[in-house]
């Protein structure tokens, strides 16, 4: 039992205890959930403290048999890729709980319990080193989110929840099939062992098999990202979800997809990944521009932010499939950045919604007069989102585009269009919501930020500045891990090609 196990277990324990608390003790449940998630966050920080930069392989490993036959391990560990994503999950959960404090009055117990369950699943996804375990956590995440949207959402919540669920299931079923196929080849679900068998040539896949497996994994992750044209579940899910749901969905859950791409698709199927990169990159670039253009004409704030996510996540996918150090580092960094800045956008949109009970841009105007501090925080977040230097997104976007330029300059040209368009849609929204004459309806419903709201927003703003000004706190360990992935991909391809030739000879 190490600290990582504790980080995984704490939310689950919290979830179970929360279920036992009587329904009448509403406020206690809130406090309990907040306390537990804060505790988890503090414990997760020890992972950062104890993380050894430069050490080979995963750290904080626990590997015990979970199911005897077929042999499935509870194998968890972290490396430079997963560390920050776990911290992101534990960092945002308390914020999600705190921001729902007053908004959720109906069935509060289940709501906060589900948020803890969600955290459990998310941390598990990023920590799992057994493919089956990964799949289990992947599906665990789905359940609380389904209910968060379906029970506490807005008017069309059932449609959105079902759409969300089916979309994701459609992909993950293929991934399950691929995982089982890998099991039949490798005789184990253990990811480290599978990778090892790949690199030593113990598993030999035909070209077709590798491509199909890659596509099965890729599709599951691409839906989650979501990559154009698989994105239509996202706007619906975001618009209907409660604020905390949107926050967790955008900030962390989408990263499951991009994380999967880096964690599984690239190391296991480097050849297929490189072969398929051209059309994936084209889809990513279409996503960047398309998401931005569609965001520009949205009348609904949450939909606008949702489409902007499609655009931002396009950058991440682009960075991953440039196969350059800068691109990959930028992509991973951009995952974190998007988590912080889009999370903050949803948070602030949620604040507006709690005041005015509308998500339509047209029902606002002049908010800057009524609530200047809210406007300033929103402005900083907007600027972060459109990639202003010194704020977080710029660093990620710069690296991604730099990587793209190294791989193929045309990619950088088209992807950079997204940067222009992001300014258009965000600033137009900002203008229509915050500037202009203050109307009577808005005036009476627009108090300044409360202490609780400050407590939600300030950590995010702080992170935007920190990550924008001093990326060296975060990037080196990511960079180290990515260098390994790129190195593996390059090294293992010839080895595997040779092994494949031998395999063919043996068969004769």
């Amino acid at each position: 039992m190490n600290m990582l196990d504790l980080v995984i277990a704490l939310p689950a324990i919290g979830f179970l205890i929360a279920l036992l608390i009587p329904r009448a003790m509403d406020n206690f449940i809130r406090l309990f959930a907040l306390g537990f998630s804060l505790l988890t966050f503090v414990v997760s920080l020890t992972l950062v403290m104890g993380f050894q930069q430069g050490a080979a392989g995963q750290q904080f490993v626990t590997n015990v048999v979970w199911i005897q036959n077929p042999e499935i391990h509870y194998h968890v560990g972290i490396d430079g890729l997963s560390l920050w994503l776990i911290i992101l999950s534990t960092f945002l959960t308390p914020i999600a709980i705190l921001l729902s404090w007053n908004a959720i009055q109906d069935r509060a117990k289940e709501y906060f319990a589900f948020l803890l369950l969600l955290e459990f699943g998310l941390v598990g996804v990023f920590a799992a080193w057994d493919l089956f375990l990964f799949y289990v956590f992947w599906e665990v995440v789905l359940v609380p989110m389904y209910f968060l949207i379906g029970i506490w959402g807005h008017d069309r919540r059932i449609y959105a929840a079902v759409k969300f669920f089916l979309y994701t299931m459609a992909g993950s079923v293929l991934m399950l099939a691929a995982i089982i196929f890998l099991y039949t080849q490798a005789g184990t679900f253990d990811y480290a062992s599978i990778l090892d068998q790949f690199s030593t040539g113990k598993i030999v896949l035909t070209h077709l098999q590798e491509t199909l497996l890659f596509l099965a994994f890729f599709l599951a992750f691409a839906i989650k990202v979501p990559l154009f044209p698989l994105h239509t579940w996202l706007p619906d899910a975001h618009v209907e979800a409660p604020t905390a749901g949107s926050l967790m969905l955008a900030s962390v859950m989408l990263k499951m997809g991009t994380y999967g791409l880096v964690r599984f698709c690239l190391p296991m199927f480097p050849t297929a990944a490189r072969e398929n990169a051209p059309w994936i990159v084209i889809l990513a670039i279409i996503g960047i521009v398309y998401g931005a253009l569609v965001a520009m004409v949205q009348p609904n704030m949450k939909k606008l932010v949702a489409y902007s996510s499609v655009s931002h996540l396009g950058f991440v996918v682009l960075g991953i499939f440039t196969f350059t150090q800068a691109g990959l580092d930028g992509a991973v960094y951009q995952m974190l950045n998007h988590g912080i800045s889009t999370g903050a956008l949803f948070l602030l949109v949620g604040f507006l919604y709690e005041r005015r009970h509308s998500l339509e841009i047209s029902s606002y105007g002049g908010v800057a007069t009524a609530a200047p501090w809210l406007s300033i925080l929103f402005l900083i977040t907007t600027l972060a989102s459109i990639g202003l230097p010194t704020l977080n997104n710029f660093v990620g976007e710069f690296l991604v585009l730099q990587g793209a330029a190294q791989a193929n300059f045309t990619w950088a040209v088209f992807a950079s269009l997204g940067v222009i368009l992001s300014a258009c849609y965000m600033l137009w929204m900002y203008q229509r919501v915050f500037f202009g004459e203050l109307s009577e309806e808005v005036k009476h419903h627009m108090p300044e930020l409360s202490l609780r709201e400050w407590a939600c927003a300030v950590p995010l703003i702080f992170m935007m500045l920190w990550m924008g000004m001093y990326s060296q706190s975060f990037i080196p360990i990511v960079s180290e891990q990515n260098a390994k992935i790129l190195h593996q991909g390059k090294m293992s391809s010839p080895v595997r090609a040779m092994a494949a030739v031998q395999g063919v000879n043996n068969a004769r």
Partner: protein
Amino acid sequence: MYKLWLIPALPFIGFLINGIIGRKLPKAVTNLVAVGSVVLAFLWVLFVGNQSNWGATPLHAHYFTWIKSGAVNVGWDYWVDKLTMIMLMVVTGIGSLIHIYATGYMEHEEGYYRFFAYLNLFMFFMLNLVLAGNYLILFVGWEGVGLCSYLLIGFYFVKKSATTAGNKAFIVNRIGDFGFSLAMFLMFTTFGSLNFAKVFAAAPGKPEGILTAIAFLMLLGATGKSAQIPLYVWLPDAMEGPTPVSALIHAATMVTAGVYMCSRSSVIFLHAPMAMEAVALVGLATAVFAATIGLTQYDIKKVFAYSTVSQLGYMFLGVGVGAFSAGVWHLMTHAFFKALLFLGAGSVIHACHGEQDMRHMGGLRKYAPKTMAVLACASLAIAGFPGTSGFFSKDAILTAAYGHAPWMFWVGVVTAGMTAFYVWRAFWMTFWGEYKGHGHPHESPWSMLGPLVVLAILSLFGGVLFNVPKILEGMFPPLHEVEGEGMLMGISIAAGLLGIALSYYMYVVNTELPAKITAALGGLYRLVYDKYRVDEAYDAAVVTPLIEGSKAVLWHGVDQGVIDGAVNGVGYQARGIGGILKLIQSGNIRSYATWIAVGAVALLLALGAGGGVK
């Protein structure tokens, strides 16, 4: 060593103080913080300059690694040489004067602290821009000043036109930044670094094609920030901001960043002759084009705005024909007299209780003689009156242009004549004749007039005091000697004087004449008066199709129609198939039995047909 970081840090501290607790501070403290921080920065610049021989031996400072990933390694680097020193002096010096002026000008405005917070933030980013030791830090400043420009243009955020102008400025600049960032990407893939020293050292050996591409992309960036064709459209609208902002950001400092960047990158441009030619052509075209619009405008700030666009064109012309130091010289003198023009205009507007239309002014020489005196200095300087600052720099550019291509000189001279005409037209319309506005005009307080006097002195004698080509000797290729320099000088002086004289005749002596000319020109005049309807053309060609297309085709068409249609279609199909299959599950045992029997028989038949079980 010299604590270069202190220069931008001082205004930044001012920004933090005024931005966070400014609302609770008394005005005097806000003033002290805002003005003090900039003045201290100016003094520190003087100190650093004095200690380091004014940048003769470049200073270099590396503070921390900002972005590092693989080969990409960008530090927070500062770099001070003679060019930086000039820019630092201009930015902090003019910045201090305008801050002082603004304490008077903005005294009765709401959001006083907010204004100064933004202004200090602007100083921070602008100083970063000029201090930068690599292109990415320059880009930080570049985007940062764009942000402050956005905030300050939209300072009166209740006014829709102001916030729209702010958005326009930001977005048009973003198009320029698109070029700039692509230039950086290409630069990094070519040189493996964004450091000035490394890039400039490696540039001469690289293929001309790539250098030309980089230079063109940088030019796109510069046209955005420095308001050149085709991206100049944001600057006239930017006059929605308070006047000190127009003076500081949209005349003296920020808009010259493009000129600074091109001069800074002179090594790259010099190895890309095609791009140089493009810079010169863009500059010249903008100079003429904006000057013609300036002839027809009635809003005093719009006149000066187009004049700024036109003068920036001059600077680009200088850079493009290889006279980098002349371009920088004009940058500096322009900062003096254009800041003065705007501040003077602000003083006039202040005097006329917020009126900006020159047709409702007039006769102000009786009410605001001091303002008139300083504005006269600025107007002489911009008209290139011999001995004034503008004369030297403009003459240097025009002479160099003649050396490059004589026709450029002649176009430049015509533009100079137009410049003199429209500036003096504004002067006569404001100060001569009878007062046609409302209320009683009044002279401005000394907090406003003081900086104007300093600027007036600089406008008159700045050219003599600071001989920029001499200071920058050795940094750029020397200016070519041109035959008959004296005659060229005479021609440009004559053009300026002619412009002044003509305006005097048309707006003082024979005031009916303008109306007659206008009537005679008819449609052509309307076209120029409507700024050639470029905004409308951009709207129709780019903005509207983009928005309508996104709405109708992408959102409703592709997203909701095709993709969601397909997804929902799959859902309905699944339901339909389920509906058919559901009929089998009747719940009637005997029908199940029938199916089983039928199945069994079918199985037996199949077995029989297949030859039975072996």
